[in-house]
């Protein structure tokens, strides 16, 4: 994680604090400030990759193959989200994800970019809007090489190698998922 200013008072560790930040006194935002708004490990794609590790099958000799060995990672995708405040009511949201990799899948590193703005329809209300875009972060499942003895060696979907699907057909079911690419957030808050 990285910070551009020394204003540690404005650091935040959860996304919920965005509201608090935007609702803070205008005096706080007089200088450009970068705040950490969220740090977390894991994501829907991480969960999906982990889910691929459920199950297994027997090889021809009866030995058990567990998917778990292929879909676990020593490092879980970490996401750091930051907010650089440009003006009293606007800021740039940005961040990154480290990605993660197991033997048979990879979540590539990601970069998040966006903005946050707010207005005050009335003295005691705040309307906030943010839009973020994520670049990268794709989950890609890798194939296995399966030997079927006399029937040949094929590149296959590791999880479906023992199914009734033709070996080459299993490749159609390799997971290739993108993270949520755009996120629009609208919030209206009234204080009374």
């Amino acid at each position, binding site marked *: 994680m990285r910070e551009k200013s020394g204003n540690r008072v404005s650091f935040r560790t959860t996304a919920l604090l965005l509201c608090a930040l935007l609702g803070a006194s205008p005096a706080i935002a007089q200088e450009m400030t970068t705040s950490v708004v969220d740090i977390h490990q894991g994501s829907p794609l991480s969960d999906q990759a982990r889910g691929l590790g459920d199950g297994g099958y027997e*090889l*021809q000799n009866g030995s058990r193959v567990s998917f778990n060995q292929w879909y676990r990672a020593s490092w879980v995708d970490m996401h750091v989200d930051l907010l650089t405040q440009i003006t009293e009511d606007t800021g740039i949201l940005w961040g990154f994800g480290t990605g993660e990799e197991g033997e048979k899948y990879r979540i590539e590193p990601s970069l998040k970019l966006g903005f946050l703005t707010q207005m005050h329809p009335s003295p005691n209300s705040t309307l906030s809007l943010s839009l973020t875009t994520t670049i990268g972060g794709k989950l890609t499942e890798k194939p296995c090489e399966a*030997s079927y003895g006399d029937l040949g060696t094929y590149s*296959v979907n590791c999880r*479906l*190698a*023992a*199914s*009734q*699907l033709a070996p080459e057909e299993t490749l159609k079911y390799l997971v290739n998922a993108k993270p949520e690419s755009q996120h629009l957030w609208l919030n209206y808050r009234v204080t009374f």
Partner: protein
Amino acid sequence: MSDNRWKFGIATALAILSAPVASAQEAPDADEMAALCHGGGLSICVSATIPAAGTQAVQGWMSPDVGAAWAAGYKGKGVTITIVDDFRSSSRFSGNFGVGVQTQRHGEWTREEAGMIAPLATIRSKDFSTSSAVGLAPGLNVLNLSYGMYAKAGYSPNQIGWSAEEASIISYATKGTAVVSKAAGNDAVAVGGVTGGQQDYLDLALTGKQTAIFVGALSTNGTTTNKAQLAWYSDYAGSNPLVQSHFLVVGVDGSKTGLYGTSFAAPIISGYAAIIGSKFTKATPTQITNDLLNTARTDTLVNYSASVYGKGEASLSRALAPVSIR
């Protein structure tokens, strides 16, 4: 049986290989079996019954492997199973493959069973009394033979003047152009053995042929915790290594279907071959045959020995699984 069958120097007689209806616990009288299953001249061993066709549901008599095999949607598509059997006689018997009691001809039963195992396979019927050569369809072919050709014991198979029908089948098994699933027989003797002074010369002719599989019957489907044993009526592999290496067993759970006999073992292997063929679409009949033989299980059988069970109990799930993966 047509007239030209009798033109052979040594006449063989068709015998359908289903066993008499009886509970698995009731060991049959040997004489009764002989009379029913391979008597001299044209004999037909009548026995069990057969199921209704076209229903794609996993039945209790099937191995759990079958349901797992269907889960991915591949059920024998693109493969042709030709049932060489009785489709014309007036002999019918009753049974229930889980779709209601039916009364059908022997061939109608075996055809239905194969179709239930591999519902998307193309099933063709060839009445064995026509004696004409069995034709092959484009793609992978599986021939189901739930019958035997019996004659007085003591001849060599090459002394038999085969009809075009059996000659074509033997040729396919020799050249490896079709998987040939042959019911082992219901005389509780070694495949090709002498019983009542007669032998199944079709067994003898197929021995050592690359795509021939002899199929014996277990009284149930075996598991590692509930091992199965050879059905009381089933022929066994015997001491000939050429038979042992091409002999499989499958569960024929007559207590659930009312159908007994290796006649109902062979269609299961035919169906398995079709399912494997629908997965490995470029595989040759020899490769499919070897896959079935090489993946048979011995740990699901009571006191396994090659002379009884041959290669063991066919395992569809293992036949579909890789040898290794990385």
